[in-house]
């Protein structure tokens, strides 16, 4: 094991660049999947006819597919029907679709967990459905959803490493390139990668616990 050689300035820079890309993909996918997931959840919660049934089927299918397959699909299969993406957007799109399906289920069960009496109280005071959703249901549901949503974000961050299969130069991929030069780098580099994931994910879970405590 060659720690000194593995942790050279150039290698560290290279790894950090990979990690930057990992975080970049995660942040974009988190933002997009949260918005899409919330919209799907609200449409299904409000039981909008037809659309909500269609969404239910799509969500079920996506949730039951391996994410890896979805990444292959967007990168390798879609070009066959004329839709072509570079590896990075392809991976981000696959991640977003997958996480949106997962998040929509979390958000929907959060919405469903709010007592129907809250809706009745709000509606009977003259608030319309949208106002009730916005002022009464969503704020209460969001508080309950923080822990499962954050743990979904954590698994999303980890799942970005799957993009390695379509050669996205994210953290794991950068690591592979470095320890591909020399076997002695393998353990030090993998340890460092573990640390990087751990630090960010651990920070997220602490944040989640903070938010939880604040809400109770």
């Amino acid at each position, binding site marked *: 094991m060659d720690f000194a050689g593995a942790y050279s300035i150039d290698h560290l820079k290279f790894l950090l660049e990979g990690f930057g890309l990992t975080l970049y993909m995660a942040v974009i996918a988190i933002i997009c999947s949260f918005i899409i997931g919330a919209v799907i959840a609200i449409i299904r919660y409000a039981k909008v006819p037809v659309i909500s049934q269609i969404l239910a089927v799509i969500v079920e299918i996506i949730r039951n597919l391996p994410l890896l397959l979805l990444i292959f699909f967007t990168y390798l299969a879609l070009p066959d029907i004329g839709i072509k993406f570079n590896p990075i957007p392809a991976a981000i799109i696959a991640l977003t679709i997958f996480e949106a399906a997962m998040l929509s289920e979390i958000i929907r069960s959060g919405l469903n967990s709010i*007592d129907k*009496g*809250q809706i*009745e*109280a*709000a*509606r*009977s*005071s*003259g*608030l*319309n459905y949208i*106002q009730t959703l916005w*002022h*009464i249901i969503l*704020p*209460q549901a969001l*508080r309950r959803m923080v822990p499962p949503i954050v743990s979904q974000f954590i698994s999303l961050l980890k799942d970005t490493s799957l993009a390695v299969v379509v050669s996205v130069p994210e953290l794991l991929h950068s690591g592979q390139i470095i320890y591909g030069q020399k076997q002695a780098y393998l353990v030090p580099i993998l340890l460092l990668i573990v640390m990087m994931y751990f630090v960010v994910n651990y920070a997220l879970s602490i944040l989640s616990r903070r938010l939880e405590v604040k809400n109770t």
Partner: protein
Amino acid sequence: MIVFSQVNKFYGDFQVLKDINLTINKGEVVVVIGPSGSGKSTLLRCINHLESISNGTLTVNEVSVSDKKTDINKLRKEIGMVFQHFHLYPHKTVLQNITLAPMKVLGQSDEEAKKIAMKYLEKVGIAEKANALPSQLSGGQQQRVAIARGLAMNPEIMLFDEPTSALDPEMIGEVLDVMKALAHEGMTMVVVTHEMGFAREVADRIVFMDQGQILEEAIPAEFYAEPKEERAKLFLSRILNH
């Protein structure tokens, strides 16, 4: 003001309301009693369209409640409702619970809504709790906030569905006192309650329901002295001797 005529309501095959004919005039206090499952809550909830009727006509201020063209949110501005389990918004303070609808539905300014909310909080005797969260209040206090929340919309009608049933006995009085004061001020009230003291003191009429039907309507003195219907007698003896 509220007129049920030949109203029926079904849940699938099950008929919850049967041939309901009932007129409630402005300023009247009507107490609805009857055994569990007799349809009291359903009757009340039809008035503000939390439930829809299956057939017949139901009008509030001459406006049909079941008509698709009726702006139901507009109608609901005139009808306050108080529930057995309060249903205060747990994430909002007492003051915010009360000001929400006046601001969003009536378009009152923040300042105006707060002023009115404080007026009603004083009226129900808990102005000092304005900035507390509902979870920090006793059941009786929460129910009084719920009443203030209904009143802040300045409604013409107030509906109460067993407002004291979920309360510890020592808190029932404080809620009934608020309701009595409201009745004396001339509010039109429809109240589902088994509190006989309240009914005797302020009700203009008792409506006795059983199995989805109105079996008897009478003034309280007569009803409690001697109900005409056999089932009403049975019911009264049961609630008196429990």
